[in-house]
């Protein structure tokens, strides 16, 4: 069965600094998708970044980038130049399924940004 593990319940970063959130997963599939979602207090899950497993190049979206290590089954998120608005819960998610493409989420990391 596929699993997603986030071992950091909470992280803090100083405004304008860089922080890395960790995620590991387990799967026997060779092709799948990985995501980082942000969940602010409004509860809405917002897609931050997506990575296709078949792509070797790490995905980047402005201040957000990932370090995808397929052999190690590791998928970390780096946030550069942290802003107060980045404070939220961050969830790592895995998706695969020829009939479903349902997501499996980790337990989340709460990110605090200190002014």
């Amino acid at each position, binding site marked *: 069965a596929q699993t*997603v593990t986030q071992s950091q319940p909470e992280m803090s970063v100083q405004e304008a600094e860089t922080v890395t959130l960790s995620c590991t997963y387990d799967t026997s599939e060779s092709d799948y*998708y990985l995501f980082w*979602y942000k969940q602010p207090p*409004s*509860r*809405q*899950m*917002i*897609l931050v970044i*997506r990575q296709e497993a078949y792509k070797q190049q790490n995905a980047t979206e402005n201040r957000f980038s990932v370090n995808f290590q397929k052999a190690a089954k590791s998928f970390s998120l780096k946030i550069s130049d942290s802003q107060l608005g980045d404070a939220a819960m961050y*969830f790592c*998610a895995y*998706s695969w*399924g020829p*009939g*479903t*493409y*349902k*997501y*499996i*989420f*980790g*337990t*989340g990391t709460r990110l605090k940004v200190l002014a």
Partner: protein
Amino acid sequence: GAGVSQTPSNKVTEKGKYVELRCDPISGHTALYWYRQSLGQGPEFLIYFQGTGAADDSGLPNDRFFAVRPEGSVSTLKIQRTERGDSAVYLCASSLNRLNTEAFFGQGTRLTVV
């Protein structure tokens, strides 16, 4: 609509009662998902619709939970004989089709069973 809309935003019900939670997906999205997020946890998959049919309901915890999507748009999650353990945030998401794995989420319904 512009985004996924879920109603009500919050629902408090007594143990043993029946509740319905509504999800209005983004217009044109054929894939629709329900997730349940318990306190301090990540969302857990409940059910997936492709069009009007439930293509995967493997996440429904028991037969008290049921969901429909009769016209391939709005979906309703129905919970019978609610229990305190059903208290959670119920999230709905939709995507253009099942091959488009970017799902857009609503703000969820917080269900509290007292």
